[in-house]
């Protein structure tokens, strides 16, 4: 029973991470380290993810066929794995983004009811 709870707990966090990965890959294929860097950089270092947690998330996205892996060479001519967004992933990103917007909006309205009245 305990493992189940844990998994649900993690899933919540991962859901967000998934969204971030998909968003990052929208700009073009990237390898694992680059994705981690990009997320850190874009969020202005606010989101300090544990870089390792990227990998289960990547695999989950591969399994769902939202992204795919391809072999390639990185900028400094090293062999590397590139992750690329699939059309299905692109669609999912749109869905997730709008969901997130709604959620964020709803939470914002609850947290700042005054501002809403002032509109």
């Amino acid at each position, binding site marked *: 029973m305990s493992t189940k709870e844990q998994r649900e707990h993690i899933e919540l966090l991962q859901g967000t991470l998934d969204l971030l990965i998909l968003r990052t890959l929208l700009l073009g294929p990237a390898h694992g*380290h680059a994705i*981690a860097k990009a997320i850190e950089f874009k969020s202005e270092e606010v989101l300090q993810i*544990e*870089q*390792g947690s990227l*990998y*289960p998330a990547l*695999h989950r996205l591969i399994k769902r066929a939202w992204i795919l892996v391809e072999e390639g060479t990185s900028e400094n001519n090293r062999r*590397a*794995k590139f992750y690329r967004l699939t059309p299905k992933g692109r669609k999912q990103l749109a869905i997730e983004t709008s969901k997130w917007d709604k959620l964020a909006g709803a939470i914002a309205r609850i947290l700042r009811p005054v501002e809403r009245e002032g509109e």
Partner: protein
Amino acid sequence: MMRRRKRMLEELDDDIRDHIERETQDNIERGMSPEEARYAAIRKFGNVTRVKEETREVWSVVWFEQLLADMRFGVRMLRKNSGFTAIVVLTLALGIGANTAIFSVVNAVLFHPLPIPEPHRVVVLHDQFPSWNMPRTKVSPLQFLEFSRRTDLFESTGALKPANLNLTGRDQAVRLQVMEATAGLFTTLGIEPILGRMFTTNDETRGGAHVVLMSQRLWRRLFSGNRSALGGTIKLDGQSYQIVGVLPENIETLYPHVEAWIPAAFSPESLTEEHRWYVDYTMLARLRKDVSLPQAQAAMNTVADRFKAEGFTFGVEVRPILDEQVGDARGSLYILWGAVGLVLLVTCANIANLLLARNVGRSREIAVRAALGAVRARLVTQLLTESLLLSLVGGGFGLLLAYAFLAGLTRIAPADLPHLDAIRLDSDVLFFTLVVSFIAAMLFGLVPSALSARTDLAKTLKEGGRGTGSSRGGRKLRSILVTSEIVLALVLLVGAGLLLRSFAKVLDVQPGFDPNNLLAMRVSLPTAIYGNPKQLPVFSNTLLGRISAVPGVVHASIATGIPFASDGYNTTFEIRNRQAQPNEPVPHASVTYVTSSYFETFKIPLLRGRFFSSADLRYGNWLATGAVRIIDEALAKRFWPNGDPIGTEIGNDGQWATIVGVVGRVHDRDLATESEGTIYIPGYGGTTLAVRTASDPMLLAGVVSEQLRAIDEDVAVYDVEAVKDLVSASLARRRFATTLLTLFALLAFLLALTGLYGVIAYVVTERAPEIGLRLALGAQRTDIFRLMLTQGLRIALLGVVLGLFTFSLVRPLIASQLYGVGSTDLFTLIAVSLLLLGMAIAATFIPARRAMRVDPMVALRYE
């Protein structure tokens, strides 16, 4: 999926290492010392082991874990409802068990590959003389040689012919089943000796050294399987045969009773044109790899066309050896297989019904689970898992039942069913049972599960535990299921009814002689001695004299064959001074050589003229002056429909014999087939002894054999039987099919009745409040009773009507198995329909009575 998972996980280590290196590099560029940079990178990455574990979890097979959980839950549910589970498992075990048993018979008899290489290429060639009513005969030596020359069709050919030889030179002469075979036979079959060598074409020369091949069984019996037997000799009919080899066991599957093989040597005479139609050899051929069966058949049709002008129709059939082995067993086995399949369908319908009823009871549980967020697909899977569990357990018990069924089945199976000893619960059968169990689970599980999962949540939860939410659709479905059960049961019952009626009709057939108190045995005479024309009559007369003197013997007679024991001979003949009709086939008839007291022995009635006297008997010169014949009624009716055949002459090639008597017709092979007519020839030609006894014939068997041996030590006796048993054995296949189909039909019938009972009982329970209300409002109890009865009757009537229609579709299948009744026999159709309706009323009666006794107060209080 599994491969992809493996690859992804394998590369994970590299990916992680790569990642950390890149991070280290970044850190160095940021000005850290290499050591520091690496440490920071690892820290930032986090727990590598955990990352790996979590990644692996992503790929773990969720459905499998769910299945396990469903199974655990299923087992718990089934144990909780142990009564329900027991009923379902028992019903299923019956259905699956019956199917498994029949399949193992079908598998062994029809699908069992013959133990020879590429058996589909081995064929048997038959002559066909449709106009003589001989659809399939053997071929003559001349034809064998001619056909064998067709190397464009056949890779190799072989011929064989049974020979009776006595194993002599030991304490007591023993008759051996010997087969004459050409050297090519073993090549054709692809059989190698386990010891020594096969025949060579050298062995086929007439007058050469006698050689013999032994079956493994004989080798063990005579020589205890000692290799030194090779090169030794055994005496057959007093002549020495050198043992050149021992045959492997697989030839015994094809020729189970043959103990020894000797080379076939065709006499120059048998290869002349006059002997073209002396068809006494079975011809086997192995088709060339590039020749298909239809091609070979087409080529042989062309060969047969050469004889179109001969005044009779002629064909050559190329028949796969498997068909040859299985014969007409195929039709009845397929019918039984189909029937037992229908039984399984009825079983499934019945269980679906039970599940529907139970799932209605569980609708609240299901609604709660749905409300808590279970997806419909998950609910269906979970209910299906329960069905699967049920059917697997049922299948397991079914296997046990099948084991018991098989024991009984092989006991009543006709002895001439090939590969009977190969019937067992082997891996094929286990696999079949598994598949059938799975299919059954889908059949009876899918619809109820889907229906339950569609439960209207709000309504079910609001209505509390009674959960009648899905009842309307459920009730309709249950009626449909029961109706189809009745349809299938009716089809089976009609089929069984027709077979039973046929069987009764066959039993009513008078064989034309009295098979009771009649003993038959075959005598095997050493041909070396009794080939001499003088010896056989002397031996026969001595024998008949001695046997007639035995107390308890009423009559004794010797013939070439007796009814139900031998294939008999066939001949063509001419009728003197008779103008043949245009296009009329050459007259033909069975021929039996008999001694004078034959008709008295068999109690075959004399219709006209006289019986044979001992003065009529001869050996050889069958058509010399003074020869007489007796014909049977069938032949008399055919050729002398209005006249008297007595005094007419029949014969061949301008030689004639006079007809002196007409006797009653006799069924000679099968009670269900009419004999085409028989000519009886008075003479010493036969080796079958028939003895009419005053009491139980088998009591005299020993004494009679002793008398035989007293005359000649080298005479062997075999096939000692009461003729009554021979007649009974001829019915074995019919009895087998009839018994089984009747059992299956009864099983289906019973299941359908319980199904009907269940539906009506359920309706009564469900409508109890309504019935209570009606009663409270003044409805008569008899009205309620009638209402419920009508419901049951309506289902039954619809089932019967649809069943009769369905039967009309499968009717042609069973038509070939019937005798004396048409496949639309009104009596059977009406009787079965009435039986079903009557029993349906009885099944409805109990719940209907309960409906009548509903207490309005109690019923309404629950509302």
